[in-house]
Structures are given as C-alpha cells and as structure tokens.
C-alpha cells in the first residue's frame, strides 16, 4: 500500500474516530481539525505524486465485498486532479473549522459533526480513486449521506430539514440515474472494473452510448447543480455550517464534473458533437440562471450558492466545447477546452470556499446572513473584509487574480471554433461567448453588492455594529485560500500544462501536451493570443505605487479632514437612508423583469387622525422561482398522488413482505429461464 494513501486514510480515520471518542470541547474540535488537515495534506501529496510523476497508483482488495469484484482503487491523473482539489480545501477548512464550531458547543453535537466531516472528506477523496463500479458507488453514496447529515447539523434552524430533504431526494435520483448508466455500460463487460468497461464501451451501439451519456449527465449533473437539477443547491449549501458549505460548493459539486468526465471522456471516449452542444446549452442556461438569481438574493450564503450554479455552468461550457471539438476531431482544441474547464473548476474551488468561509465569519460575528441587516463590517472585521474582497475580485473575473485567468482561457478555448466548417459551431460559439461575458458583468455587479453592502457603509443593525473579528484559526483558513487565489492566477503558465497533461491520452486527446507559453507569459497553443497575469499584476502594483508617490510629493499637504457624509441638507444620517441589497439590485430587477416577474406588495398603515402621517409601511417584493413553481411543484404533487397507490403495498405486515420477496424471486428466476445467458 502506498504511504500517502495510507496516511490519508489514517488521517481522516483518526479525525473521525477521535472526534467520536474524545470528550467535547477543545480536544474534540482539535482532533477533528487535525484529522482533516493531516488527511488533506496526505491526499494532496498523493495527488501531486501522480500528477507530476505520471504513474498511476493502484490498490485492489478483491476479497472485501467480493460479490461485485471487491474494492478496487486506481488513481490516474484525471482522478488525481480531483483528489488534489479535496486535499487542497480540506486543509484550510479544517483549520477554519477548529474555532468556527466553537460557537456550536452545547447547541449541536460536535462529535457527530467532527466524525461526519472527516468521513465526508474521506469518501470524497476515495470517489476519484475508485476503479470499479461498486467502489465508486459506495464512496459516492457515502459522500452523499455524510453531507446530508452535515447539512442537518443546525436542525433547529427553520428550513434546514426541508433543505436536507430536497438534497436527499435529488442526490438519490441522481444516484439511480448514474447507476443505470453504469449498468448499461457493464452489460457487455466481463467485470465492472473501469478498465473492462472502457474496452466494452467500444462494442456498444451508438444508441446505447448516447443513453449512457445522457444518464450520466442527468445523474452527475444533479450533483454538480446544473439547471434545472440545481434546486437543492441554493437550499442545502447555505443550511450547512460554513466550512461544510465551502467544501460542498468547492469540491463536492466538482465531483459531478468528475463523474461526467470519467464516463463521457474516459470510459466512452467522447461521442458525437451534439453531446458538446448539449453541454454548452445546459452550461449557458445554468450560468445565466445562476447569476441572475444570485443578484436578487439578500441572503449572503444563498447568493454564494447561486453563484456556484453560475460557475458550474461556466465549467460545463468549457466541457461542452471540449466534447464538441472532440466530436469534430479537433483534438488539440478539445484538450485546451477541457483543461480550461478544469482550471476554472480549480479556481472556483479556491475563491468560492474563501467566500463561504468569509460569509461564515460574518455569520459567526453577527449571527445573520441577511445583507440588509449587515454593513460596515470592514471596521469590525478588517481581515475577513480583506479576504472576502480578494475572493470577490477573483470570482468577478478581474485581473490579475485566478478567476480572470480561467475565464480568459475559457474564452480563448472557444476561438478555434472558427476553423470548423460544421454548421452548429457558429451559433454555439456565439452563445457561449455572450454568456461568458454577460455572466462576468453580472457577477461583477453581484459581488460589488455582496461586498459593498455587507462590509462597507454604516451598519444596518446593532449586531453588525458591534461585530468582532474572527478568531485566529478562522483567519488562517481564509488566508490560505486568499493566497491560493493569487497563486493560481499568477502561476497559470505552470498550472495549465499540468492540467492538460492530466487529460492527455484519455479518449483521442493528443498526448504530447502543447506549450502554454514560457516564463511569465501565458499563450494559447493555437497562437491566438498571449497575456501575462504576472506582469499585469506587477504593472498594476508599480503604477499604483507611482501614482501614490507622485500624489504624495506634489499634491497639497493639507491633512485629510474627516466629516459627515454630505446629505443634501438632512440633519442626521441613519442606516435607513443607505442603499440596501434589494435597492442595489433594483435596476437589474427591472431590466430582467420578464424573467423575474417581481410581485410587489405595499401596505401603508396611516395615522387615524390624518392621512399625511404614516404609522408604518410594509413593502414586500418577491420574484418568481420558475423551476420550483413550474417544474418541481407539479412533479411533487404527482409523486404524492402516486405514492397513495404505493402505500397500499406497505401494510406493515411481515407476511406480506415475505410474499413480495417470493414473488420478486420467482419473477427473476422466470426471467433467467426465458432469457438464458
């Protein structure tokens, strides 16, 4: 057994068992955090070893659960990337969680939380290592169940139980679909090992290949949070403790991307070009829907969750471009597009978890996630504010941070589409480019709102006014991720070839990985464009410094006078005069009114003596949740109606159940006799 693999299992194991056995308090929290950091570091080391060394790591335990080929692990470069993602986030989230969960003491079970968190990370780490269907599904289900319990942590909060219910239902529908896909794949194979499935996939009919791909897309798409299967995401992610939200948004939804790549790219080896077209369409829909709903959110964590839907949409656009180019035999362009999608997944993991941890610090300090009750936190929480600003700049795709680099790469990976003669390419590329740009602009607006309303101006509630800075371990956790955001932006030239190398060789992607520039200059292999995030950063710093120096030397030396904000003659400024989160998004709500269909409800309570005096005004405005109302509500009603029929079967009597068993057994045997072999 590989040393790092053992250390990883050991780390998470120690964390889980230790958290259960230790008495509560600091020791229990400490051992859980320690397990996460240890396991994460070992996982990261293993992943780097495979990514840089190139040799896959294998481990088979056929005797364990031998009925379905036993447990088998094999970590290739594609899996190593996703394992690295888990490890990368486990460390800061572990460090952060140590003091974050301190506030839970006495309210919720820390033992359960610590153990579940470690098991969650362990199963997430093992999903990309799995090498046969049984192992994959076991780990996948473990990941889903542990995260379900993690979402349930704050079970006494309103909506948490409902959120967890949505999550459980969606994730199991997804599991069933993915399982069906695997079964079709395995129909011609001798065993369910991925290697055999890959060989057998070649002999499948095109119709079966398409079915497998669509099942995988629906199954893993529901985990990734692709529209319209995203409805659980903005419910479940905010309900979980913040460092769990960070892990769920940062890594877990990326494993949906992993599942899709494993089946679509690795096992099936790509397919017709319309697979890519479908992915681009779904990605574009998710990106636009995600960012538009994010803009309207007043709940900080829900805003971040909707923005995850947006970003996973961008990743799917990259994947779609990859499958499209692969289907059109432009393998070099496909490799670049897939690598750009992975790069965006990596970057999103860094900045989204940073933002969730930042939101956690805000929640920790003020006990509210409602931005209309926040404000002015930059004074009480200077560190959190600075880290959140880094995350906001990165997610808005602004240079020179990492979000900009991967959006640039996504954009550039679409340009080779011009070479293609296929008629579907032109509209798809145009759609993808306009969606990329629209979401970038709207995301910038959304994160000006998220940062500006939460951290700037006058506090809008007493809780925000006396907020205090997060404890050291939480700041360290955020700091690690903020540095990651900068490094992933500046070191693009080194990261991009590594990502391309992780994919090269699977399907028909070319093996000698093309160069992505040298030194500090990032360039596209197609020669389409060059840029250098490092030098842009350097330039920005130099010019800012120079401007500061010149102003310092030549401008007036009068000291800055601090005075009240100019207010058009009003006597005193109160927070009620400020722009709120709702007000900030109002122009965009009007622009996209066709989509939002806002309902407004204004009730004024006049003074009984005179209509010129108002006792209270209540304003309520809601936007239409399209997918919930028109897609899921009818579905849920129908399922409820059908379940009345099914209820008749469930009598509660053991005799009846035994009869069902016998009937089922007889049915299967009949099937075997009718269709031998």
């Amino acid at each position, binding site marked *: 057994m590989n040393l790092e693999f053992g250390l990883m299992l050991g780390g998470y194991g120690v964390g889980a068992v230790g958290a259960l056995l230790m008495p509560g308090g600091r020791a229990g929290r400490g051992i859980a955090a320690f397990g996460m950091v240890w396991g994460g570091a070992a996982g990261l080391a293993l992943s780097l070893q495979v990514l840089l060394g190139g040799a896959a790591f294998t481990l088979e335990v056929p005797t364990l659960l031998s009925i379905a080929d036993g447990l088998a692990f094999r970590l290739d470069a594609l899996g190593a990337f996703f394992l690295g993602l888990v490890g990368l986030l486990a460390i800061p989230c572990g460090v952060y969680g140590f003091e974050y969960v301190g506030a839970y003491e006495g309210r919720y079970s820390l033992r359960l939380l610590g153990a579940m968190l470690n098991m969650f990370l362990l199963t997430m780490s093992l999903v990309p290592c799995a090498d046969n269907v049984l192992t994959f599904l076991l780990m996948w289900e473990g990941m889903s169940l542990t995260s379900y319990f993690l979402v349930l942590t704050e079970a006494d909060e309103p909506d948490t139980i409902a959120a967890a219910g949505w999550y459980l239902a969606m994730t199991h529908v997804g599991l069933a679909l993915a399982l069906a896909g695997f079964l079709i794949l395995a129909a011609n194979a001798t065993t369910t090992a991925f290697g055999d499935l890959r060989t057998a996939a070649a002999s499948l009919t095109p119709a079966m290949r398409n079915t497998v791909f669509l099942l995988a897309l629906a199954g893993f798409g529901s985990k990734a949070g692709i529209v319209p299967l995203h409805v659980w995401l903005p419910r479940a992610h905010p309900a979980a403790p913040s460092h769990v939200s960070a892990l769920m948004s940062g890594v877990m939804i990326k494993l949906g991307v992993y599942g899709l790549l494993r089946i679509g790219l690795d096992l099936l080896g790509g397919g017709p070009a319309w697979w890519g077209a479908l992915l681009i369409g779904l990605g574009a829909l998710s990106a636009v829907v995600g960012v538009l709903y994010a803009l309207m959110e007043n709940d900080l964590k829900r805003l971040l969750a909707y923005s995850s839907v947006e970003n996973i949409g961008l990743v799917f656009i990259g994947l779609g471009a990859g499958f499209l180019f692969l289907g059109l035999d432009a393998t070099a362009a496909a490799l670049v597009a897939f690598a750009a999608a992975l790069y965006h997944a990596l970057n999103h993991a860094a900045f989204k978890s940073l933002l969730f941890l930042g939101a956690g610090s805000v929640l920790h300090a003020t006990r509210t996630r409602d931005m209309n009750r926040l404000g*002015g936190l*930059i004074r009480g929480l200077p560190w959190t504010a600075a880290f959140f*600003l880094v995350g906001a700049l990165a997610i*808005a*795709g*602004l*240079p020179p941070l990492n979000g*900009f680099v991967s959006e*640039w790469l996504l*954009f*550039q990976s679409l*340009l080779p589409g*011009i070479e293609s003669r296929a008629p579907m*390419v*032109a509209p798809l*590329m*145009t759609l993808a*480019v*306009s969606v990329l*740009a*629209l979401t*970038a*602009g*709207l995301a*910038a*607006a959304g994160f*000006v*709102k998220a940062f*500006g309303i939460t951290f*700037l101006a*006058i506090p809008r509630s007493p809780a925000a006014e006396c907020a205090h800075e997060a404890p050291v371990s939480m700041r360290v956790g955020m700091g690690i991720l903020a540095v990651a955001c900068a490094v992933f932006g500046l070191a693009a030239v080194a990261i991009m070839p590594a990502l391309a190398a992780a994919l090269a060789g699977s399907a028909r992607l070319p093996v000698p990985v093309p160069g992505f520039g040298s030194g500090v*200059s990032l*360039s596209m292999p197609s020669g*389409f*464009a*060059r*840029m250098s995030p490092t*030098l*842009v950063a350097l330039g*920005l710093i130099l*010019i*800012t410094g120079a*401007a*500061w120096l010149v*102003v310092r030397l030549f*401008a*007036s030396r*009068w000291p*800055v006078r*601090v*005075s009240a*904000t*100019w207010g*058009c003659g009003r006597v005193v400024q109160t927070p009620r*005069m*400020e*722009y709120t989160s709702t*007000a900030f998004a109002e*122009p965009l709500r009007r*622009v996209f009114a066709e989509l939002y269909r806002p309902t407004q409800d204004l009730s004024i309570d006049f003074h009984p003596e005179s209509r010129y005096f108002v006792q209270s005004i209540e304003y309520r405005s809601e936007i239409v949740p399209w997918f919930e109302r028109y897609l899921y509500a009818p579905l849920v009603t129908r399922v409820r109606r059908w379940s009345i029929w099914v209820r008749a079967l469930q009598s509660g009597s053991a005799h009846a159940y035994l009869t069902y068993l016998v009937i089922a057994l007889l049915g299967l045997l009949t099937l075997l006799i009718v269709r031998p072999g």
Partner: protein
Amino acid sequence: MGYVLEVAQAALALALAPGLAGLIRWLKARLQNRRGAPVWQPYWELAKLFQKEVVVSSNASWLFRAAPFIVFASTTAVTFLVPILAVPLPFDGLGDLLVVVYLLLLSTFFLSLGGLDPGSPFGGMGASREMTVAALAEPTVALAIFALALAAGSTNLGQIVARTMADPGAFLSPGHLLAFGALFIVTLAETGRLPIDNPATHLELTMIHEAMVLEYSGRYLALIEWAAAVKLFIFFALLGNLFIPWGVSVVLTPTTVAVAVASLLVKLVVLAAVVAVLETRIAKLRLFRVPELLSVSFVLALLAVTSSFLLK
C-alpha cells in the same frame, strides 16, 4: 526604442486625455451658441483639485481612500496595452483586448465600492446604476472583440491592427462595420456620455457617474476625474486605431511616429466632434430605457460575429 515608445504613448494618453474631455465640452458649447470654457479648462480643474483640501466621510474606510489609486492605476495600465501610436508594441504580449476590457471593469468595480463606502444614498444609487450599465455593456464588448478576433485570428491588439492594415478591404467588411457600431454605443455607455449619462450635471436624480463620486474631493477626485478622461481617450483610441488603423506606425522612424501622432490627433478630433454633435442633438434617455439601447448594440455585435463566421 519600443519601450521608449510605450512610455511615450502612455504619457501622451495621460497628457491629452483631459484636453480631449475639454475639447468635447468646448465643441458642445459652440454648437449650442455658447462661448464655452477653453479647451484646457480640465487641466486647471485637475491642478486646482490636487491643491485642495480633502474631506473624507466619517463612515468611510480605507477602501474609500485606496479606490482612487486603483482606479487610476488600472486605467493607466491599459494605456500601455492599446495601440495608440505604433504596432506591435513590446507590451503587446502582456495583455490582449480581453485584458483591456477586464482592467477597465476592475476600475469600475473599485469606483462602485468607493461610491458605496460613505453610506450616502447618492453613492449607492450611482454604484448600482454604474454596475448595471457595465454588466449590460460587457457582452457587447466581448462579442465585438470576438468578431474582430475571428477575423484577425487573434485577440492581441497588435495583430488585429496589422491584419486590417494588410487587408484594407476588411475595413468595409460587414463584420467590421457592425462591430464598430456596437463598440461606439458601448463607448458612450462606458464613458458616461449622453444619452446614457449626462457628464455636465452634478445634481440630477438620473446621474450615474457623478452620483458615485459625489463624496470624493481634492486629490482623490482629481485622480478619478483624470482616470475617467483617460478611459474616454482609450475608447476613442480603440475606435480610431482598431477600425481605421491607417497612420499607426509600423516601422519606427521619426517620420512614421510623427505621422502616427498627427493621425491620432485627427481621429480624436473627429470622434470628439461626432460625440459633441450627438450630445447636442439627442436628449438623455430615461434610465430604464438604457438597456434597450444597449441591447441594440448587443444585436449589432451579434450580427458582426455571425458575419465573421459566414464570410470566413
């Protein structure tokens, strides 16, 4: 030599930008039968602002004071990347057209945060509107770039200019003309000109840019106003040199550089005159009609891309 030219063109942009804003103001005044302030008035205003005392709101944080420098720096950084006098520039490989657009978005981002920071309702109003306009203008800019890039085979500015110069017929290609129209409307939106925003007013409930910078004073305001003028200069230079590249120097001799400066001045004056005439002829749009104008520019850009694909 190339690096000297880089610094020279950035310096030229910084030096000429206030004059360009002054020129539009003067032309507008003449068109409206007013005498108008002299063209160099903005220079005196900047000099005065740099000498004035700074008043900062008691609600404002460090971000309020840092924002003007970041806004100024990110706008100035762009002047090193766009072809103002010559192609190819030594810094051409540092950033392409997308970097230019996102650097300008970076400056808008910080300007909006600076507007929100003092907690004034005007600042919030301006920030909210500015980000709305920026978000809606963004897809148009990207699509216009995409159209140019598809034609030129690169998003790097030097290559786009070189390609149009090599093939003068491309200047009249539908993709080119449509992209020009789209980018021209976006220029008006991004630089706060009529009919989107009125640069001549300070107190109007429809203002965008001025509302956002209302709390700024002294040297901070000077930096922001200067950056706004440079942004106008950049957009004019892009319109002038990307679409009508003649005059831009390709081989570096004193003559070609002189021709480049002269042709740049001519282009700037022509564009300034167009904007001045436009601002005299049309009224400001209601804020909620602005998206309609921007969607027109979006459709133009969309058509530009489609024609690039069809004619390739």
